[in-house]
């Protein structure tokens, strides 16, 4: 190589490097969204499906060039914190989000964590989307929490009413884990069942969350011979074992829950015994899922190796945050602008076929719009997949 060639190639390399660096500087600005939830320990599945839904959606957005907010394309970065289902750690996580200048956080996953972070969120101008049901989080004077799913006191009565009309159920029994979420869901479920005219034949039996053999637990419940057995607030880990124990003890009635479940877990843990099990999902069935939902499932599966059906409901929170900020770009740093926008916000629901809309609801339950409107899709499990039983809408 002579000197001229060397000079030429050096100059070319320098120009190319400069161009690449310039391109790097021209990358989209980043919008950080937080997640504070449980991704380790017994309840890891709840938070992991949240975090992975957000990461899969963020990667998708970034791959197609970003999210358009006020004419500027933003890359989305998910900042995650594992609270280990411990309220103290949830507070630390929310403080970390505040220090990072984050104004929108998904989580926490459970009641006590969601209640614990409230002061931190309110003092630091953070809007958060808990998966917890206490009404005090969403009723005035509280205003920073937005329920990220359908609450059991909304889905339960709809399920019981449907089963009364279509299956003629008259008696119901409740069984719940000995933790605040399942117990409160049991209590509100039993109250709703009584209000509908159902006879509650058992609602005192509870179990430790670490139970490995549910046969002794289930025995006194099955002896009451209910038409419907409700597994209040049951986690995906415990549902197959409870179903299996009930069926093996000879129970032939209906079994339902108001939490989201995973079809693969039910199939592995209970097999055919889970057929007919009723649970709540998102746009989880083929007849409801849009192309965007199918692509989301495909991307999630490629990214993490396996899809989790709980993500059918958990995909929505990030979508709501981004769409609301896009509707009013001032909301990116001003949560009061976000709250104002919520009252009138409406956008197409990308994950469902038809003319389903994204909007904020909750006026009936909380007196103000502090809940994302996700379709109340009630599923029945059959042979490894969920089938839609009925679809309803919550306000």
């Amino acid at each position, binding site marked *: 190589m002579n000197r001229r060639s060397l000079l030429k190639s050096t100059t070319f390399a320098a120009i190319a490097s400069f161009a690449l660096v310039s391109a790097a500087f021209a990358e989209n600005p980043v919008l950080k969204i937080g997640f504070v939830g449980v991704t380790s320990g017994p309840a890891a599945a709840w938070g992991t499906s949240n975090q992975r839904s957000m990461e899969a959606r963020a990667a998708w957005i970034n791959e197609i060039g970003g999210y358009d907010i006020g004419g500027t394309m933003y890359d989305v970065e998910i900042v995650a914190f594992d609270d280990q289902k411990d309220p103290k750690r949830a507070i630390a996580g929310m403080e970390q989000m505040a220090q990072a200048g984050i104004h929108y956080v998904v989580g926490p996953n459970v009641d006590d964590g969601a209640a614990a972070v409230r002061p931190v969120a309110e003092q630091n101008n953070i809007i958060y989307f808990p998966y917890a049901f206490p009404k005090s989080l969403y009723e005035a004077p509280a205003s920073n929490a937005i329920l990220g799913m359908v609450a059991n006191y909304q889905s339960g009565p709809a399920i019981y009413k449907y089963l009364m009309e279509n299956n003629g159920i008259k008696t119901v029994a409740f069984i719940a884990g000995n933790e605040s979420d399942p117990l409160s869901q049991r209590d509100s479920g039993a109250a709703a069942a009584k209000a509908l005219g159902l006879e509650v034949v058992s609602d005192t039996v509870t179990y430790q969350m670490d139970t490995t053999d549910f046969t*002794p637990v289930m025995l006194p419940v099955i002896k009451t011979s209910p038409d419907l057995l409700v597994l209040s607030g049951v986690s995906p880990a415990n549902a197959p074992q409870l179903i299996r124990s009930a069926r093996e003890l000879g129970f032939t009635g209906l079994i339902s829950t108001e939490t989201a479940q995973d079809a693969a877990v039910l199939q*592995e843990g209970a097999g055919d015994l889970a057929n007919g099990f009723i649970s709540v999902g998102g746009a989880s069935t083929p007849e409801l899922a849009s192309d965007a939902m199918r692509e989301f499932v495909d991307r999630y599966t490629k990214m993490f190796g396996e899809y989790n059906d709980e993500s059918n409901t958990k995909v929505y929170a990030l979508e709501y945050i981004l769409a609301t900020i896009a509707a009013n770009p001032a909301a990116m740093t001003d949560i009061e602008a976000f709250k104002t926008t919520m009252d009138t916000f409406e956008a197409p629901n990308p994950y469902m076929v038809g003319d389903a809309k994204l909007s904020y609801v909750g006026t009936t339950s909380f007196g103000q719009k502090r809940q994302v409107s996700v379709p109340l899709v009630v599923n029945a499990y059959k042979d490894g997949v969920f089938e839609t039983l009925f679809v309803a809408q919550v306000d």
Partner: protein
Amino acid sequence: MEQILANGFYLGAQYALIALGLTLIFSLMNVLNFAHGQMYVFGGFVTYTVVAQLGLPFIVGLFASAIILAIMGALIEVYLFRPVIRKSKREESTMLLAAGIAFFLDAAILLLFGEKQRGVPKIVDGVFNWDMRIIMPYDRILIGVLAIALIAGFIAFMQYSKAGRAMRALAQDRVAAQLMGVDVDRYSMIGFALGAMLAGLVGGLLVTITGINLGMGGPTSIKAFMMIMIGGAGVISGAIAGGFILGMMESVGLTMLAAYGDITYLAIFASLMVFLAFRPQGLMGKPWG
């Protein structure tokens, strides 16, 4: 009442097998292995992977769990516990190490096997029903019988094999055993491997019944500690007795106290506190029986 007793007996068999590995390690090395529950979970996930993911027979999964956990146990003893025991004069060093291993295994399980509950198909279909007085699925009966067979095999191994006799000698008096020519390092490693293998075997057996998930390790360790406290730490017969007593208490409590809410373990813990106040060494006490 027949159903309650049958449930208690089945629970007791599985609990006893879990406690055996823990008490073996404690008796040989004076180590409270807080990672025992995580080893149980790891064994369950190995069986799940072999049976559900690779499609191999259940027995292959069980062997894989036993072998992998035995190797894991041996490596943990040689490279972690042995140096710490040699260098540290304080007993809590091994407790901290065990707790650290438990956290490490939790994280490793999450990375390797994911966060979901896992299970394998029933190995035997059908339910035994004696006039509605005892209802017990055949797979539970089979697992209960296998657990009892494993307990019997373990006792026979400890009683009649050269390695078993050496480990019993170690448990009774470490220095005297060494003076009599017992290779302390070798049998400590074998003992730890055997304890870990038992944990893995139970995990593999129960994955067909209860399934397995990331969060089962800690609670399993706590129950195992309760069993050896009831029976007497470091005593094989004590671990078996503790397992069956806990299983029976749980079964009776869950049925009899159901109307009062979830107070079974409250009652069990309260009884255990009173019991230990009068007999702190447990039913069978130390040293090795």
